């Protein structure tokens, strides 16, 4: 850069107009890795869309552009009444579970963070330790529980294991740590009760965390497969992933229909993401200004 200063202005101007040249090997490698990463992310989505536009006989061709693109699969899936039902099921389940997580995870996280009571640390560790137990291990106890309570094949049965999560509680507790105690004490002096303080003072201050949690929980439940598959029996209770996996018959999986259903079912996740992402970005900006 120092060199540019002594050159005639024209040369300097010329140089700035030239496309930016990669400085060194390191930068080239970085770009290459990012590019490969990008491809790895985009390819499955591209194939999903491509497959959803293919006729059944072309499904096993690896070409990305279908020879004879068709919307037939979309018409089929959308005309198939079952898909609507599954879609509604998934929406209801993912939405209710998300709301429940936002409320209860933050309530517990807030309590663990802002109230000093004996045994607090033990409760927190107990909650955290459940993170170490994989879903696969829990499925059988959940099933037995659902069976004895008569929750099999119901919304409640599908939702109950996820209504509160250890991860969400942990996340919210950590975020409430960043809310200064002064806010809470000021509210106490202003005459709010503890529940009002949580709702009107603490919750608005952790909106970015709530948005992130909402995205996590919604996506997690939208794509959940194992437990919904086990707990549901009737086709009307299926969620999208469970329903889609059953497209086709035993001999022949109808990939083009599955991919079509999958493509349609990404739309709500995009909507959720677009809605809540705004809060996350705004949250970051707000936090920056406060400092």
């Amino acid at each position, binding site marked *: 850069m120092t060199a540019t200063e002594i050159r005639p202005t024209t040369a300097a101007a010329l140089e700035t107009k030239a496309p930016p040249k990669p400085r060194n090997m390191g930068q080239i490698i970085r770009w290459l890795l990012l590019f490969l990463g990008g491809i790895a992310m985009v390819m499955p989505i591209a194939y999903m869309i491509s497959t959803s536009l293919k006729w059944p006989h072309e499904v096993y061709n690896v070409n990305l552009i279908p020879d004879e693109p068709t919307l037939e699969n979309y018409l089929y899936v959308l005309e198939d009444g079952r898909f609507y039902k599954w879609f509604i099921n998934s929406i209801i389940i993912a939405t209710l579970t998300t709301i429940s997580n936002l409320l209860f995870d933050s309530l517990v996280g807030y309590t663990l963070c802002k109230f000093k009571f004996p045994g607090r640390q033990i409760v927190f560790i107990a909650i955290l330790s459940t993170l170490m137990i994989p879903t696969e291990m829990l499925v059988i106890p959940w099933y037995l529980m659902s069976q004895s309570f008569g929750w099999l094949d119901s919304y409640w049965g599908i939702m109950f294991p996820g209504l509160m999560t250890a991860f969400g509680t942990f996340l919210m507790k950590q975020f409430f740590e960043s809310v200064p105690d002064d806010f809470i004490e*000021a509210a*106490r002096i*202003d005459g709010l009760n503890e529940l009002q303080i949580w709702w009107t003072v603490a919750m608005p*201050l952790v909106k970015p965390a709530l948005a992130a949690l909402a995205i996590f929980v919604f996506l997690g439940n939208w794509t959940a497969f194992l437990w919904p598959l086990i707990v549901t029996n009737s086709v009307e209770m299926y969620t999208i992933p469970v329903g889609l996996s059953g497209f086709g018959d035993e001999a022949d999986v109808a990939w083009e229909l599955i991919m079509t259903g999958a493509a349609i079912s990404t739309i709500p996740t995009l909507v959720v993401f677009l809605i809540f992402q705004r809060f996350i970005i705004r949250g970051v900006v*707000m936090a920056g*200004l406060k400092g």
Partner: protein
Amino acid sequence: MANLTLRNLTKSYGSTQVLHGINLEVGDGEFVVFVGPSGCGKSTTLRMIAGLEEVTSGEVLIGDRVVNNLEPKERDIAMVFQNYAIYPHMSVKKNIAFGLRSSSLSKPDKEKRIQEVAEILSMVPLLDRKPNALSGGQRQRVAIGRAMVRDPAVFLFDEPLSNLDAQLRTQMRLEIKKLHQRVGNTIVFVTHDQVEAMTMADRIVIMKDGHIQQVGTPAEVYHMPENAFVAQFIGAPSMNMLSGTLTVDGVALDAGTRFQTSQTSGTPQDVMVGVRPDDLTLEAGNPVVSGIVTVREPLGHETLIYVDTPSGEIIAKASGKTPPEVGAHVTLSADLENLHVFDAETGLALR
């Protein structure tokens, strides 16, 4: 409005006691400032008055009520915090209105009250702003507004100015004092800045290690400190301390000087003689100590000189225009009435 009484107030966290029997009477409408070094228990005392911290033993009375077991909201107090604690997701107006949530005023009356407070604090044009669009001073004004709006019996301030820059601090200091003269509520104000304490207080409470050292008007604590700690804490630069012995004839400094004092002691007693830099002059008078000037700090209208003496480093004030040169040998004198004699062991003033 009400008076505030603390009776034998103590506070312990587990086995560590941080407050040791605080006794204080604050009159109705009085402006009392708690001052002391970091960790001496000022905030803890304030928070116990507010009801944010449990009282270990003793009593807090607001008006004639013992409020030990009342919730903060039932105590008729308002508090302003060091980092403002105004809610960032609410407009200025909402923040101020928040203080009125539990009040029984009608809606139009509340509006009127908010407007009134905004006018007193000259914040009317800012009412619709969010806190992050305000300067530090403006934020603190919002916090004061939220406290004022309820017209509480007692205002509590915990170092409300320490996040502001020096100039703004001076300005807000004046504003709070004017505000007090105007609204007349009882105020308890915590600071660790002795200048703030001196300039604002009707009475100053000086604390150290959970004990009250002295309670008095700014003039009393400045001119008649009850012990060496208070003497050195109040006033900047700090009071100089010279060790010596008190006998029937008066004081003999270790440095050699002798002078007659009103205090005497039959048996020789180790003492500390305190003298403020302001009271030490280069003019002839009662010589106290002499030495070599090592450093000069010009402050404009005067110059601080650091003098290396047999009694250690002594700070004195000299003229701003013609201070002695570094290296000069000077003799510092003081009026006898400006010398404070303290017991070397207990630190208590001998009068």
